[in-house]
């Protein structure tokens, strides 16, 4: 008390210097630019660490490319080039064959945050906020000082535009460092080659000796950034692979920093139908939004406002809403008070309004899901289910599920050289952790099995392994049967974009863990994802995907979404159950037969010894009985005692591949081998002849 009094009575004393006044404070109070905000809070946009920064950069660019191609009706072809330029420095170049960007828009799109076409409309698209790619450019600038390089071409006859841009973080405006026009045709190609401009001018030739087709239009963005390239979970490789699954109409050429060219070929040339833009549904609008909309509306009456701004509101419904809120239908929108608007809001919620039209949602479709899965995930059994559209909070959405069972385990797919590389790249602290992080679907149990089999200490660091230990680890990875300990590999998608992080917080994962997979023939411990060699893909398509956070990593759980997820999972689960039961039966049959065969020879010998008949003929006769018996017995009953129909019908959209493991491993695209499949040719469809389309 006394010290405070002293301060107050002696303001000039050196101890109690006045810190700031309202005036001095006002001098430092100024607007914060969006760019400044995000430059400081880069983690909000997915740039929390160098590894994720590389992924986010590529992801934003690829998502934009795909959106643009689909909107323009072009079958997308994407080139992704990642190149290491220094320690922790990478250059990522992403090019598409999209419509290109008009010259004057280029600086705005790539050099200004929150500039875009997708934010203001309710339409199913990958990107939503218009932050992504410019934020990536900004991140590159902040970490390396290098500008964003853009090449864009709108027509085969018109010149291409080359820009070097950087974002002014203070003003959120683009600064053009260099901008030239490159002529169309041969002259331009020469210029591109001479000046080292990164641009793919031609498609891969159809056949090795054919003349390659020239790229008619497209956009390429090249960003150099501080990053870290690492394979495994949450990597660029994984993102592109998963993108290829959900977008079977896309071809991706991916050149990784180690100069391996990987090609994900499209399995269809059919573009998904164009999604239709819809007006918001009244149920999905909050009070605040309602106030803004009322302020902005050109309509003069409430009734007009309701019918024209929302979907599914007819004059009758508008009248009902107004009556419920006790407002005249012809009242001027701008005259409503806050209370009135609140009443209006409650009245909307109380009025029965039909669900929004669902044609604005474009599912991948069961057939394409199967193709996509088959292209990338080697397995024995595939099935898919697309649920009919449903609605949460006035937003239409749709759930699709595809499942692949069996096939080679990730750990057996790699070479020793690749393992050595992966080990040196890894930042995991223990080998066990390394295994779990690097290989998708490899559960903790399986990792334990492998480390135990390789006789490695539990806390061994992956970077410090001796060659002998690497050999042991490699052997263990090849030979340990991890099928049982393997946990289900879940691929989550929202509007065809893979979700790679925040697995636990996602409604999709929660639906999977809360389901009982044991009844479908998989083993599962309570509250966990089931185990087994299963890859499950879940896609949520919606005009507005409810993410749990800005970084778009997990879907929020609304009861309607959970219900649809459950139904979708059950649909594929049932088919998997049928397949597994049948396979079990086949196995039992083989076991039975082998037991009988073992004893037949003995019985035949004994019989011929007893009555002197010909041993061979007895044996042959008994063999015939054995074959008849085992075939019969398997037809009769299944495990639950029901009659099993031999020609069991799995229903639509099931793909059963009866191939050897080697064949599965040699699939193009799955093992990183360059493939000479020509992108303009739809030859890859032939690979689906074995599809069961009934």
């Amino acid at each position, binding site marked *: 008390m006394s010290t405070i009094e002293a301060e107050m009575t002696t303001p000039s004393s050196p101890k109690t210097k006045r810190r700031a006044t309202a005036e001095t404070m006002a001098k430092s109070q100024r607007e914060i630019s969006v760019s400044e905000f995000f430059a400081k809070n880069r983690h909000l946009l997915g740039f929390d660490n160098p590894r994720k920064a590389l992924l986010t950069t590529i992801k934003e660019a690829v998502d934009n490319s795909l959106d643009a191609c689909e909107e323009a009706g072009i079958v997308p072809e994407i080139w992704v080039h990642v190149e290491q330029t220094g320690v922790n420095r990478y250059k990522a170049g992403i090019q598409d064959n999209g419509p290109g960007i008009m010259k004057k828009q280029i600086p705005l799109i790539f050099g200004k945050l929150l500039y875009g076409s997708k934010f203001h409309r309710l339409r199913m698209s990958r990107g939503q906020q218009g932050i992504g790619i410019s934020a990536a450019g900004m991140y590159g600038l902040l970490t390396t000082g290098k500008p964003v390089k853009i090449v864009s071409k709108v027509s085969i006859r018109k010149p291409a535009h080359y820009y070097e841009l950087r974002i002014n973080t203070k003003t959120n405006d683009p600064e053009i460092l260099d901008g030239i026009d490159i002529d169309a045709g041969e002259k331009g190609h020469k210029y591109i080659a001479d000046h080292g401009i990164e641009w793919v001018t031609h498609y891969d030739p159809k056949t090795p000796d054919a003349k390659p087709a020239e790229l008619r239009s497209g956009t390429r963005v090249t960003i150099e950034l501080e990053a870290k390239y690492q394979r495994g979970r949450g990597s660029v490789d994984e993102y592109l692979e998963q993108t290829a699954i959900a977008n079977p109409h896309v071809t991706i050429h991916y050149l990784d920093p180690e100069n391996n060219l990987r090609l994900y070929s499209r399995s269809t040339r059919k573009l998904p139908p164009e999604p239709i833009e819809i007006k918001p549904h009244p149920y999905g609008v909050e009070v605040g939004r309602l106030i803004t909309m009322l302020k902005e509306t050109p309509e003069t009456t409430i009734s007009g406002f309701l019918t024209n701004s929302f979907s599914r509101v007819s004059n009758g419904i508008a009248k009902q809403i107004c009556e419920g809120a006790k407002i005249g239908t012809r009242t001027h929108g701008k005259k409503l008070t806050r209370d009135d608007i609140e009443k209006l809001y409650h009245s909307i919620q109380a009025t029965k309004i039909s669900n929004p039209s669902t044609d604005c949602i474009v599912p991948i479709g069961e057939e394409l899901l199967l193709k996509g899965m088959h292209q990338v995930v080697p397995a024995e059994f595939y099935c898919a289910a697309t649920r009919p559209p449903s609605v949460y909070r006035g937003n239409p959405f749709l759930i699709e599920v595809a499942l692949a069972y069996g096939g080679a385990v990730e750990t057996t797919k790699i070479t020793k050289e690749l393992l050595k590389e992966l080990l040196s790249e890894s930042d995991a602290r223990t080998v066990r952790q390394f295994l779990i992080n690097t290989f998708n679907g490899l559960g903790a149990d399986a990792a334990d099995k492998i480390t135990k089999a390789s006789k490695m200490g539990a806390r061994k660091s992956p970077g410090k392994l001796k060659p002998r230990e690497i050999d042991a680890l490699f052997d263990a990875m090849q030979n340990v049967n991890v099928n049982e300990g393997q946990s289900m590999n879940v691929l989550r998608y929202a509007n065809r974009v893979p979700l790679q992080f925040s697995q636990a917080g996602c409604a999709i994962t929660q639906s999977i863990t809360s389901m009982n997979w044991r009844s479908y023939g998989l083993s599962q411990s309570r509250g966990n994802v089931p185990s087994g060699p299963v890859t499950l893909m879940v896609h949520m398509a919606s005009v507005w995907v409810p993410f749990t956070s800005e970084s778009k990593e997990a879907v929020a759980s609304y009861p309607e979404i959970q219900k649809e997820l459950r139904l979708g999972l059950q649909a594929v689960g049932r088919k998997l159950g049928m397949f597994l039961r049948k396979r079990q039966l086949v196995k039992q049959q083989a076991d039975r037969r082998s037991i009988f065969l*073992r004893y037949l020879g003995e019985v035949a010998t004994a019989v011929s010894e007893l009555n002197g008949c010909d041993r061979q003929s007895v044996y042959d006769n*008994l063999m015939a009985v054995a074959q008849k018996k085992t075939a019969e017995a398997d037809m009769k009953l299944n495990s639950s005692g029901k009659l099993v129909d031999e020609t069991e019908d799995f229903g639509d959209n099931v793909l059963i591949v009866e191939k050897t493991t080697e064949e599965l491993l040699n699939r193009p695209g799955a093992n990183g081998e360059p493939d000479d499949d020509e992108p303009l040719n739809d030859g890859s469809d032939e690979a689906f002849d074995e599809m069961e389309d009934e």
Partner: protein
Amino acid sequence: MAKKKSVKKQADLPLRSDTSEKVKLTLRDKKTIGSLTNLADTVVASAQKTKDPRLEIPTRSLSNVRYNKSQRILEMGKNTTARQLFNLNQAKSYMQTMLAAAGCKRLVESGKTTSIRGLYYLMKHTIAGTKEETFSDQAESDPIIEDLEVLLESLREELHLYAQQRGSMVGNIILNDKGDTIDCSRMGSGGYGIPSIVEADVIQFRECGADFVLHVEKDTVWQRFNEDKFWKKHNCILTHGSGQPPRGVRRLLHRLHNELKLPIYCVFDNDPWGYYIYSVIKQGSINLAYESKRMAVPEAKFLGLRAIDYERCNLNPSVQIALNDTDRKRAKQIAKYPWFEQKKTWQKEIQKLLDNGFKLEVEALISQGLSYVTDVYVPERLEDRTWLD
């Protein structure tokens, strides 16, 4: 194909060497070979019709045993258990049954007999192309042989098989064993080992001066009686069967009783197992109920030990052996057998055992004197005629 050939070779070799000597088959042997051949013919017939070959084996369990009240013996019921080649659980035992049949045929044709252990070795080999043995141990082959006996309705000796010799005899009787004359009163301390096969073609009784047969449970007790020359004093035949008597001993007791009209008296331990040994001698066993007719001695009497003997003979408390759970369970089981259920004296006896809570071995009587059992106990019982029937 290569596999099959190798099997054939393996199986053929011993067969040839066995049949190379000419053997004269008896009528009974021919009958046995006939039924063995029939067995094989059924397999061939069903295989030709692509039908599942199956054997209908009479069931050897309590459920298929009937107590014949008038004859006072156990009889086998009509239930059979199917044994199919094309049934996962039965495939192996089917194969084993056929192997046993083939093995027996080999024995009969070569005119030799072997122990059931010998047959086990004869049949045992590795199944071609696998690491599996046809039989893993003798415990697997013994029930298969018994199955074969009931299946063919042949006796063990008809299959040229015998069991391990267990049981001895001493006493006032002279018999012929395969042509040799045996005077059982001059057998020293070891006694005459009762062979496994004691049919009339092997053993003929020549002279018998004994008045009764005293059958004791085991060798140690038998030694006491033999050393004290009990059989001389009381003019009897003294036998033992090393616990559960083998078929040879039971068949011999049956013959002694029926052909020489000798009463059979038994002295066993006072425990459920002793009771059951008595039951097997008297009524026949559940497992071999089909042989009761030629083995059971319904008139056999149970002299002791009785549950009341602890008090009756003033035994020392330290000779008690506490009943365990299995003993109690078995005692209750025995009390429920139809041939015990109707007998009040036996119900009382078993109840007394359970009430006592301990069992008594015959040797326990030694606490009253080394030769108490021979000098006092058995003579007293015979005198009083206080036995259980």
